[in-house]
């Protein structure tokens, strides 16, 4: 069956994303959600269990959760591809997913015969794919309400697989559960009112009968939260505001933002969640939210059974540069810390500040703050008020450093890998009215400024390797372009690191040295997706998949849209 006959694909294609004064609006979405089935019989019926996901990081045939494992290492134990043979990697197939909107996702692989891929992209479109043949088995498009407003495009970064279902967050701040075998809707739960400015774009995570999901809307004056839902029914199990009232002055808590807009890292042993937390609200006017604005711009640890806050580590107190700390946290167990002569579980955060923070997983104590990944110029200098007539370009700009892009960690090399922007931006603050559901920045952001600090090296982005134990920046590859860099990384047990660039290049690095081992030109469009990898014992091949196409800032200019899922392979 062709894509033209796929009603869910057509519904996604008919949906238009339009940039307005208030952000992105999704227009032309179907009135009712649409499932279209192709060859669903190919999907083997068995539950995806806790144990399977827990072993996913060590199972070369699986990629069962957004970060590859609950610790979000984004590392595969598939070992066919090595630094020595990666140059032989070939295109297995290019799948046109049909809907050419935001492409920020990471597909999942449920192992089996054939392995089933669950792949999603904007606007809330998900597919089950025979990953061996590249055939679409079912597709689904969620009916996004037309009054949804989004700061940064109609992103969807992936799904969760658990039991007999897959789970996707929806742009109107909800979670929808689909039958994993048929793509039919099982339940939908709204987690907050999208008319207040809430939305949801991340891949949820599942464990022990619970679905964990956060909150977005940090540019719309909402109040951030995290929730656990019952995986079977969608019923809310607990709800925790990210910031307590006692940390904010008076009613400023109501617009405090500090949203949790990328997914939780799960510590199954200690039954904890480690959450990335975004900017305080409004973004640029700190005068209406005095104090450090805890727990914004940092890491928040919660008890996964009750939602109780355990600790928070703040990277930027009283942020006025939109220095979210959005990227998923990496949990490293038993890290040997030589200079302290101790071994600890640590949580690692790659922030917009361009530093990597390594924290004690039990207390949030900072063990090391790394060398900067990119340039820090005029950093932490107060932005001017709009009436001052002063200019103050700052670096990292408001997109970082490391924004949402999920970093990878390779236990074999002991290095974390990340993509950072290196571009000045300007912001001015002003007093601004709050109106429910409307943009609430408290100022203006100049995205592409001509005011450039003297010391700026002119290189817009970099791919960086940092040792989380010592904070040493081990290697860095500057990426020059007209557009920003976006999307995440994957690394292999054999020491290869894959990632895409805004120039349409898909690159394999030697994880130790940073040498480029292989490059593939995927065309003009930027690559905003995050790659993943798996091994198929039937074909005896290792595969690497990446979604091609821009999103957010990268949908414009040099970046642009695409509709392809590129899958590469190498035989044993």
């Amino acid at each position, binding site marked *: 069956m062709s894509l033209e006959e796929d009603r869910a694909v057509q519904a996604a294609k008919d949906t238009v994303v339009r940039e307005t004064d208030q952000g992105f609006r999704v227009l032309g979405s179907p009135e009712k959600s649409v499932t279209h089935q192709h060859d669903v019989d190919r999907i083997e019926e068995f539950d995806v269990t806790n144990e399977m996901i827990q072993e996913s990081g060590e199972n070369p045939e699986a990629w069962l959760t957004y970060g590859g494992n609950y610790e979000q290492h984004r590392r595969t134990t598939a070992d066919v591809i090595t630094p020595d043979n990666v140059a032989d990697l070939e295109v297995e197939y290019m799948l046109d997913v049909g809907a050419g909107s935001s492409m920020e996702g990471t597909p999942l692989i449920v192992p089996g015969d054939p392995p089933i891929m669950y792949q999603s992209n904007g606007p809330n479109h998900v597919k089950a794919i025979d990953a061996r043949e590249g055939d679409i088995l079912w597709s689904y498009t969620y009916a996004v309400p037309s009054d949804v407003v989004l700061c940064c495009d109609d992103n969807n970064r992936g799904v969760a697989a658990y039991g007999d279902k897959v789970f996707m967050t929806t742009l109107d701040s909800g979670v929808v559960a689909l039958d994993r075998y048929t793509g039919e809707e099982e339940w939908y739960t709204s987690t907050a009112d999208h008319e207040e400015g809430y939305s949801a774009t991340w891949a949820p995570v599942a464990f022990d009968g619970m679905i964990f999901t956060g909150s977005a809307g940090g540019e719309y004056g909402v109040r951030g939260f995290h929730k656990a839902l019952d995986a079977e029914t969608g019923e809310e199990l607990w709800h925790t505001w990210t910031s307590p009232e006692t940390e904010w002055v008076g009613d400023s808590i109501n617009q405090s933002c500090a949203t949790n807009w990328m997914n939780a890292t799960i510590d199954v042993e200690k039954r904890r969640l480690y959450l990335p937390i975004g900017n305080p609200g409004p973004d640029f006017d700190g005068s209406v939210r005095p104090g*450090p604005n805890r727990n914004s711009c940092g890491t928040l640890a919660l008890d996964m059974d009750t939602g109780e806050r355990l600790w928070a580590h703040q990277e930027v107190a009283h942020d006025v540069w939109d220095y979210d700390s959005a990227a998923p946290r990496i949990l490293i167990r038993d890290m040997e810390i030589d200079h302290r002569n101790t071994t600890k579980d640590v949580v690692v955060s790659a922030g917009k500040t361009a530093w990597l923070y390594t924290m004690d997983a039990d207390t949030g104590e900072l063990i090391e703050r790394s060398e900067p990944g990119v340039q820090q110029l005029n950093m932490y200098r*107060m932005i001017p008020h709009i009436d001052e007539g002063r200019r103050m370009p700052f670096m990292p700009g408001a997109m970082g450093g490391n924004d949402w892009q999920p970093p990878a960690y390779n236990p074999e090399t002991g290095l974390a890998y990340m993509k950072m922007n290196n571009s000045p931006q300007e912001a001015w603050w002003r007093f601004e009215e709050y109106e429910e559901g409307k943009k609430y920045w408290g100022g203006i952001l100049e995205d592409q400024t001509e005011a450039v600090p003297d010391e700026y090296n002119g290189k817009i982005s970099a791919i960086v390797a940092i040792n989380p134990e010592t904070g040493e920046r081990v290697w860095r590859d500057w990426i020059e372009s007209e557009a920003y860099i976006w999307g995440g990384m994957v690394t292999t047990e054999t020491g290869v690191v894959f990632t895409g660039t805004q120039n349409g290049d898909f690159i394999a690095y030697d994880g130790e040295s940073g040498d480029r081992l292989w490059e593939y030109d995927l065309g003009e469009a930027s690559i905003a997706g995050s790659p993943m990898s798996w091994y198929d014992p039937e074909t005896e091949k290792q595969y690497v998949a990446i979604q091609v196409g821009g999103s957010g800032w990268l949908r414009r200019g040099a970046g642009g849209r695409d509709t392809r899922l590129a899958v590469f392979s190498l035989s044993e």
Partner: protein
Amino acid sequence: MTTAQITDEAQRQLARTLDVDEVRDGDQLTIERLRDEVERTDDPEFASMGESIRSDLSGKLDAELLETQLEELSRQLERLPEVREQGIPEGETEAEVLYRELAEPGWEIYDHLVDVDFFESLEANLPRFTPEHIEGTAHELIATDELTAELEALGFDEQERIALVMDVTNNNDRLARWVPTKEIPAEVEFGVEHVPPLHQRAAGGTLLWVDALDVHLWQNRVLVTDEILDDGYWDIKALLGGFHLLAQAALDITREEGLTDSQLTAAITAGAAIMIVNQEEICKNMFWITEEMRAPSEAR
């Protein structure tokens, strides 16, 4: 520890604002010299603002609570050198209470002031920080022996008292941008219900910054230097001094004799101004730790 830093240019700016004789390089301005040259404000509105605040809050404030907690706040200010000596709170798995104790009496006062709508009254009766209002405040602050003597009793030496006056007089632009919620900037229609009153933001923010130091310094000790702690010492002292000034004004409302209405207005405005300016300073000195400021890594 670092005390208030006063430059020649800052002194000249203070002198210009107060219209006093020229200050030469190396001169040291004193409160006494300023008092000799500065007159009280004769703006009737200044007194009328204080009168309205008194009228709003008459019979609502708990004098005993304010008095007790102000005494406790004074004791906490006396503790500052020993807090600085310890620098970073102890604690195996979390920060023990060190800085939070400094702010504790402040919270007792703050909660009471919120309960009696103290901040709403200030919001209703006081203007934004215009140059005229700031100038009037400075004149009253300097000319009022009770206010400067109160600061002296709290342990602010001559130089520190001058520094606090400068916080008020030398920051017109900074202060003017902390707009009262009732004010409507030219192009913005402002929704007052969503933002706490200006003076509540000044006072609450002060206490939150001091409270946050325990966890901030304990968690980030690998970044913290003696210089950061030394610089922060003055910021904390100034913040708590500003809070004390505001709270003392609240106590004065309960008394039959004390400050004049103009002096009341000045004490409240000066307290808020000092708290606002030093909130911005404590960010820079203690929380926004750049690569240049941080302690060297032990791992590299």
